């Protein structure tokens, strides 16, 4: 691991360790979404099994948007972002460090949320439960990699906080579909999730590569 990447990652992790802003707000927000969905749909029995995967993914998605906006907004204060732009280091490493940090935060939120989720929806995993450990990180990576990229893009516009979900969600939709379908088929055990896992993997590879290649263009746009 290169030292630039490690420096950025350590800095982000240290800030989060001291403030715990992102994780706390995401956790509470995701919890709220889960409760809101439970009240709206009154999930019981088989129906709960059917919608639980979707609710988990959507809750993660909404929650992470707030944190992703903050990820770059933090850098604007004290002109940190300008300093990063002037630094003779590749933007791709900065980007990757941010993605890794946010990936970690969102994953922590998911792990913390999972027991609450199992209890509130009375879930019983009918398929192979270990596959969830593959599907959720793949989906989260798709969300966080694209989200970090588009947050950096949206931060340059007039109404930055508003723009991120507007441009992130349409691009993320295919991955959300894959994530929800895979999670649901694992929870219900009705169908084979592998097609969706492959699709998610392909999506991750394509969009991470393009993000890495184009990040400098966005970061240095003037």
């Amino acid at each position, binding site marked *: 691991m290169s030292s630039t990447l490690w420096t950025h990652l350590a800095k982000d992790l240290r800030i989060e360790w001291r403030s715990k802003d992102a994780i706390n707000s995401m956790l509470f927000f995701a919890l709220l979404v889960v409760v809101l969905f439970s009240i709206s749909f009154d999930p019981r029995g088989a129906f709960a099994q059917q919608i639980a995967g979707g609710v988990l993914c959507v809750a993660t998605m909404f929650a992470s948007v707030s944190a992703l906006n903050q990820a770059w907004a933090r850098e604007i204060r004290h002109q940190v972002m300008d300093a990063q732009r002037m630094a003779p280091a590749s933007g791709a490493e900065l980007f990757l460090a941010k993605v890794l940090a946010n990936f970690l935060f969102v994953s922590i939120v998911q792990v913390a949320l999972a027991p609450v989720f199992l209890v509130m929806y009375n879930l019983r995993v009918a398929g192979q439960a270990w596959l969830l450990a593959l599907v959720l990180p793949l989906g989260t990576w798709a969300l966080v990699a694209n989200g970090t990229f*588009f947050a950096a*893009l949206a931060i*340059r*516009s*007039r*109404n930055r906080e*508003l*723009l991120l979900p*507007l*441009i992130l*969600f*349409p*691009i993320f*939709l*295919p991955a959300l*579909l894959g994530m929800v379908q895979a999670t649901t088929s694992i929870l219900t055990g009705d169908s084979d999730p592998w*097609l969706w896992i492959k*699709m998610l993997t392909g*999506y991750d590879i*394509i*969009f991470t590569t*393009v993000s890495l290649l*184009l990040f400098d*263009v*966005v970061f240095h*746009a*003037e």
Partner: protein
Amino acid sequence: MKKVLLTLFPLVTVLLMVQGYHQAIYVAPDDAMQGYVFRIIYYHVPSASVAFLFFFISLIGSVGFLAFRRSSPNRAQIADAWALAGAEVGVVFCTVVLTTGPLWGRRAWGIWWTWDARLTTTLVLWLIYVSYLLLRRFAAGPQMQTLAAVLGIFGALDVPIVYMSNRWWRTQHPAPVFGGDQDSGMKDPTMVHALLWNMLAWFCWGMLVLFLRYQVERRHQQYAAIEAREALEASA
């Protein structure tokens, strides 16, 4: 020469549209299964192909902008105008597809909409390019063009996922008319002719609108450049 072409092309387009309408409504026979309502295909399929083509033009424009933005600003501006025109007119044609589709689906399948792979992904594509247009509105100045070009490339990356999804996933939507398997597509040559006429007519119409939109955007850019220069001279 250019002027002659500019007056001739709209005329030819209108004639083609008349011919396309005639073929679609009067010449082509009713479908054996679906009857009269099947004729909506002559508007649905051409609009879809034109929309996809224009999103592709938008991609080329976006790539061109990023490639030329340092070396040749003028070419970059031309590329950006194509990118915008392609996305905007593409969204219009995509809207036509998403409107004619449910109208047809209601009669043919009995439902307005189904969350089938190709329908969903066309809708996703529409959403992506609407978000592209929103970004262009929200961001300002030359950096907006760069950001939009990047988003344009991301949006276009979804297009192959959109199209291939038709073959990857089980789907309610019929197999493509051209390049499907042996049992799919049209068997009656008059139907194929009518479809080809309409493809041509809607393609020409689309190109006409695209070109006009491109010209408007170029004028807009030139005006912005003049304004910027005047502001600079006034402050000097």
